[in-house]
């Protein structure tokens, strides 16, 4: 008996040794992907994480990884549920010890639950366009990055856009803020109130209860108020309902400006004709005209390694947003490698440094083939946001068309709000903020 087994054991041992060697020879950068493809927002997750993973594959195929370090990843399904998100995080964090790309939970609830944990485990948490916005103040939140822009800055940029439309004067105008009555919808209220004091316009706040598929009463109120503009903070099924309801009460859609989560093809196509002229903010453009998107379709889908089952989603707003998130992550790793050694896998701590010292200029975006896909991003210790710019886009009946340049919100007005909030958080939690002057 033993005689038969001995060679088998030897073979197994040898192959195991070879395997182990193989694993150490090539450096790999691991991405814990805590995402969702089923559940209430599964359709959004499919496009977004599809784009994210496609870009990682693209980096592997096109340039053999970042300086030779291949990107690897493992997905865990959260179904947009906070408890599941925490479970996924705990499951994947063991694998993220040696090297960790930033986590993108794509859920405000989950990112709130992970902020402290991620900071304790030294894994950077990226919240691109959602999440805890006062984490802009990196002195209190070293591991949390609300990259590119935040709800408050977005609200401020939208106000700027309508102010430009009204030739620089909003005094006496009336703006309705119609929002999803949840953490997400309430986030910009403080910023809008500050803007209304500054620009002397009337702000009327109208909440819509989740999920928002019944808005008759709200739109009746809007008709009575006769506002000049409606700023609209919707999510999921609420978006198309609002657009249809606006048509019903005869409110012009081109006076209605949604947030970036109320401005994807999923929202407008299902609203049909009613959506024509509807506008929304966005921090990335749609379409395949962006060189990197076209190249991903060619390289990744050409090699049969695409992540999307439905390739028609390539070039949609959310798919391109997934690519933008991946670009930011990969650039952070590149930056970290410059400091900690090229061709090495970066730990979460090192990637964190990379994210805090991002400098994605227009020239760099051009090299990446991502000109105009997203705005320039330059982060520092006391500014984890890095940009604060959005574009306003308009639905022309079949696609989104950008109708403005990159608009920056009123930083002088908004950022002090973040700092005050972060200070309160630090006090509650007994955190001593880092001295940003000493960080490098």
């Amino acid at each position, binding site marked *: 008996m033993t005689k038969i087994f001995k060679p088998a054991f030897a073979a197994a041992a040898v192959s195991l040794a070879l395997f182990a060697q193989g694993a150490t020879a090539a450096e790999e950068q691991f991405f814990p992907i805590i995402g969702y493809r*089923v559940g209430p927002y599964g359709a959004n997750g499919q496009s977004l994480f599809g784009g994210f993973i496609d870009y990682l594959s693209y980096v592997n195929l096109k340039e053999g990884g970042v300086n030779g370090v291949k990107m690897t990843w493992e997905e865990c*399904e959260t179904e947009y549920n906070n408890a599941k998100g925490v*479970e996924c995080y705990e499951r994947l964090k063991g694998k993220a010890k040696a090297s960790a790309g930033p986590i993108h939970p794509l859920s*405000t609830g989950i990112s709130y639950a992970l902020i402290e944990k991620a900071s304790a485990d030294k894994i950077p948490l990226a919240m691109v366009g959602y999440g805890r916005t006062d984490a802009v103040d990196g002195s209190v939140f070293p591991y949390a990055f609300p990259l590119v822009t935040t709800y408050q800055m977005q609200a401020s940029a939208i106000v700027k856009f309508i102010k430009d439309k009204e030739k620089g004067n909003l005094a006496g105008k009336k703006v309705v803020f119609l929002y999803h*009555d*949840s953490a997400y919808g*309430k986030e910009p209220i403080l910023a809008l109130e500050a803007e209304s004091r500054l620009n002397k316009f009337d702000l009327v706040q109208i909440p819509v209860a989740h999920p928002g598929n019944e808005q008759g009463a709200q739109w009746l109120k809007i008709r009575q108020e006769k506002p000049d503009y409606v700023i609209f903070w919707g999510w999921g099924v609420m978006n198309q309902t609002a657009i249809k309801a606006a048509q019903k009460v005869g409110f012009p859609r081109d006076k209605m400006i949604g947030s970036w989560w109320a401005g994807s093809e999923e929202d407008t196509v299902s609203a049909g004709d009613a959506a024509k002229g509807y506008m929304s903010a966005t921090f990335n453009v749609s379409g395949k005209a962006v060189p990197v998107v076209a190249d991903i379709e060619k390289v990744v889908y050409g090699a049969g390694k695409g992540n999307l089952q439905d390739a028609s989603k390539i070039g949609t707003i959310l798919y391109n947003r997934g690519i933008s998130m991946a670009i930011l992550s990969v650039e952070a790793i590149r930056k970290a490698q410059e400091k900690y050694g090229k061709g090495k896998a970066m730990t979460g701590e090192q990637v964190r440094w990379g994210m805090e010292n991002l400098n994605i200029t227009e020239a760099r975006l051009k090299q990446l083939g991502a000109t105009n896909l997203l705005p320039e991003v330059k982060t520092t210790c006391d500014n984890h946001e890095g940009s604060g710019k959005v574009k306003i886009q308009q639905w022309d009946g079949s696609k989104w068309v950008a109708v403005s340049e990159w608009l920056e919100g009123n930083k002088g007005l908004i950022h002090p709000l973040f700092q005050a909030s972060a200070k309160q958080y630090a006090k509650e939690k007994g955190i001593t903020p880092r001295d940003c002057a000493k960080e490098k």
Partner: protein
Amino acid sequence: MLYREAGQFKTTYAADQQLFPIRQDRLGVIALLAIGFVGVPLFASEYWFSAILIPFLVFSLAALGLNILTGYAGQLSLGSAAFMAVGAYAAYNFQLRVEGIPILVTFIMAGLTAAGVGILFGLPSLRIKGFYLAVATLAAQFFIVWCLTKFPWLSNNSSSGVISTQKMFIFGHEFDSPREKYLLVLSIVVFLSLAAKNMVRSSTGRAWMAVRDMDVAASVIGIRLMPTKLLAFAVSSFYCGVAGALYAFCYLGSVEPDGFSLELSFRILFMIIIGGVGSILGSYLGAAFILLLPIFLDIALPFFANLFGLPFSTATVSHIQVLVFGSLIMFFLIVEPHGLARLWQITKEKLRLWPFPH
């Protein structure tokens, strides 16, 4: 053979009245507690603590709370998650606004606050029963979540309504590692379970069961309905409130009102239906089933898929998981409508006769 009580004579009233009259049960519980307090902390990994054990204990406690109300006192409730929310937000506000309040006192106060709210929403139970009462408690579910979103004071003016819990200190020692949190939760849950076990066999518990089985008959034999029902609501909400506080402080660390949705209430209700209505053990079994089975499937399915070379994506796994989970619930409800606790009871009875069944 293993489980026979022959030869165990009870010679005192104390021995006759003890919690676990059979020696094997007693030893079993002691062994379980020893494993829980000593074995698990020695060997479990961080993942086990934060993702499996702590939520399991917290939800067991919430299920236990609902079981007291629904299983023992017979009052159907769909508001358990809301009472958890009251507990979580109350604990946060007590920590925030009362200087130097000990964390354990905070948890008790959170429970008491939830109990107060529970009594308020229990008032309709004096007039209405069954499904109609369920609808009344549904009002609690929606009202409380709305209230927490509506009044910013409750979340300390957080712009999003999300609260982030404070650090926990007991006698100057900070409970921050998952292991310490687990031990804290375990101690509280064990203490409250023992209290519940005793409560349901006291005159209070017997009064609850009498009301459950037939309230007219109960009132005829001299049980006052109002205090009995309201007490059930109070105790049940107290348990849910403490569970909510632990959920916020020891498990997630930050909660938002929307997290305590109707869906969560249903989950807790399913826990006691699967586990066993009117059984303390059932609350634990149900929580384990509802909470741990999906995680187990989530980990096991990709493994088997790899083994057989099937191309499973995470989305497919998620779909299959729901499928398997749903069919298992149906299977258990058909095979044993009285829940997992009843299965355990049958096993015990069989074991007593084994190996000589008649």
